[in-house]
């Protein structure tokens, strides 16, 4: 037995080394492809259907989707229906003087609207108001100079909450005030919402942007076109271009726009040029004195003269001083049937042209839907 002790000791030592050295369930591995590159990370894009594709049925899985990044197929890890993965619905609300009826309409219709989401795992409600300013501007006078006689005010926000009462309390506190000139500042509000709101870990984010004029862009510095109420510090109202906001939201959040109909300012010639092979598309429909058409963020513009894809949201016309009934906007089904697709991407990829294709059988019929998200920033 004494002779065997060295052997047993060595074997025991090796077993200990082996057990300690073994790192889980790895084994000899030859290099193998990943989605578009060497290393990998995950990206996700939320899709809904506004471009002539049928609403996606509930119950699809990752195997129903194909994702390409810059034309290269990548691995689809998950497909999360909004009602399972949760949804965040954020109101981006113009609360300048002419929006009183719109605000009242939202207040009156929000409860019925919310009742359509009772079968959802999680729904988070949030909101941000804007005029020329946004909540980050704090208490100021320049955004509240109209009607004359007011001295100061502040645009507010409500953080995401599953308690609808929190949103209702915020809505009740909204007052249509300020303005007195065109355009207003939804682009800054959207980017501020993206950056500062405490977004819950849910799959889909939908933004309902309500405004009765166009939007400031960075290249439209003060004074405003009608030169009524500039910022006293001389800074432009908005630090963003519409194209930058579109790039930031594509795949990250879906923007629905309730805004004036500026279709007359879109031209088929411009659309043809923009959609020509190799053309670089820059959202650029600016309405004289009224600002940039935020419809570009939603569905990308009128179908016949669309220059690019939006974020996949729906556009609904808002007439001046019109009431807004959330249940008549036609966005309910889009939110309900949206999916967040989780896919693999190279670690060092910061943006890519993302195309998602859904293939499924519905009522015995084979269907395919293609969602060209354009250039998505990760």
């Amino acid at each position, binding site marked *: 037995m004494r002779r065997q002790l060295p*052997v047993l000791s060595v074997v025991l030592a*090796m077993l200990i080394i082996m057990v300690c050295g073994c790192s889980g369930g*790895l*084994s000899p591995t030859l290099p193998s492809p990943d989605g578009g590159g*060497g290393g990998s990370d995950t990206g996700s894009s939320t899709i809904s259907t506004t471009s002539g594709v049928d609403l996606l049925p509930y119950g699809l899985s990752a195997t129903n989707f194909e994702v390409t990044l810059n034309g290269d197929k990548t691995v689809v890890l998950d497909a999360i229906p909004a009602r399972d993965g949760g949804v965040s619905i954020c109101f981006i609300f113009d609360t300048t003087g002419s929006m009183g009826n719109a605000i009242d309409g939202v207040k009156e219709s929000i409860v019925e609207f919310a009742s359509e989401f009772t079968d959802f795992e999680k729904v988070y409600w949030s909101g941000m108001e804007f005029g020329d300013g946004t909540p980050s501007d704090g208490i100021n006078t320049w955004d509240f100079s109209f009607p004359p006689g007011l001295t100061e005010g502040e645009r507010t926000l409500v953080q995401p909450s599953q308690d609808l009462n929190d949103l209702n309390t915020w809505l009740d506190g909204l007052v249509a005030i300020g303005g007195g000139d065109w355009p207003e500042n939804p682009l800054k509000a959207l980017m501020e919402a993206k950056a500062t709101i405490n977004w819950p870990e849910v799959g889909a984010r939908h933004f309902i942007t309500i405004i009765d004029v166009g939007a400031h862009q960075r290249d439209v510095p003060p004074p405003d076109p009608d030169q009524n109420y500039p910022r006293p510090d001389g800074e432009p109202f908005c630090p963003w271009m519409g194209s930058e906001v579109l790039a930031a939201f594509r795949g990250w959040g879906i923007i629905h726009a309730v805004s004036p109909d500026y279709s007359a300012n879109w031209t088929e010639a411009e659309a043809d040029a923009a959609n020509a092979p190799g053309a670089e598309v820059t959202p650029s429909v600016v309405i004289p004195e009224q600002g940039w058409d935020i419809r570009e963020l939603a569905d990308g513009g009128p179908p016949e003269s669309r220059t690019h894809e939006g974020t996949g949201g729906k556009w609904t016309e808002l007439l001046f001083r019109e009431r807004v009934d959330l249940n008549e906007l036609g966005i309910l089904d889009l939110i309900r049937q949206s999916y967040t697709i989780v896919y*693999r991407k190279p670690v060092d990829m910061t943006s890519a042209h993302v195309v998602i294709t859904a293939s499924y059988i519905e009522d015995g019929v084979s269907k395919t839907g293609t969602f060209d998200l354009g250039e998505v920033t990760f």
Partner: protein
Amino acid sequence: MQMLKQKSFLWLLAVSAVLVLLLPQAATAQTDGTPNLKSARAYEGSPLAWGEVRFWASSNETIAVGVTDDVGDRLEGSIGLLDIDVSGRDPVANVVRASKMRLLAVDLKQQVSEGDWTVAINPGLEFALSDPTGTNTASGVSAYWGDVIPTLGIVMERLYDDSTLIINPKMAKWRSSSVATNNQVVKGFGTVVGIGVGLRKPVNPRLQLSADVTAIICGRNTVNENTNRVEKDLVWGISASYLVSDTRPTWLTVFTSNAFGPTGATSLLATPDNAACFGVRLDSTF
């Protein structure tokens, strides 16, 4: 996966059967190298048969069998068959990878000097009997890693008292890139050059211990478990060899290592995250 397991089990049975048949005729088996390095001394004597199985924590096995013989004046020839058909249980960059490789490894070892230092040159070729393939199991796309892998090594060893020091610079020419089935260009190991240092020490006439470590100085030899990118890592091995029987002198070696396999090309490759195997090897002469 079940098929893989059945296949590996059949291989294991076959190797065991061959070795059992050889045992009665066994003479003085030799275990002159270390787990991943060859000895500089050319083999002399009756043909030596060997077989090994590496058991991985991922419930995979890799198997190698071969024959080494004295084929000329201080010239040793070896032929071996290596079978790797594994799919790690844990993911690499969040995706489980499958690797498949069946190699026929042929190499010569010419001992060129003997003195304080014994030196040998060890060229070889490893032929793919099936395409060496790395597969992303999530997408099903694969990359192929060549038909022939040339290898070259220079082995130097010196005796210090009863211990033997082995220094073994060696090289294997893997493909540097491959166009995968989805047309993606995947970076490969390339030409891998490493310098191995090993030590072999007899404890008594029946038992000897050995260990080696190989530093990679050129090319890449492993896949990073987090990024799926190829990178460098040390290759190492520790073993204990035991003369099982005086009347039937056959060496049983148990070892642990992170190397893919015992051939010139595969002994330069390390597992992701330094995953180690538990290995069993039998050496016996005809």
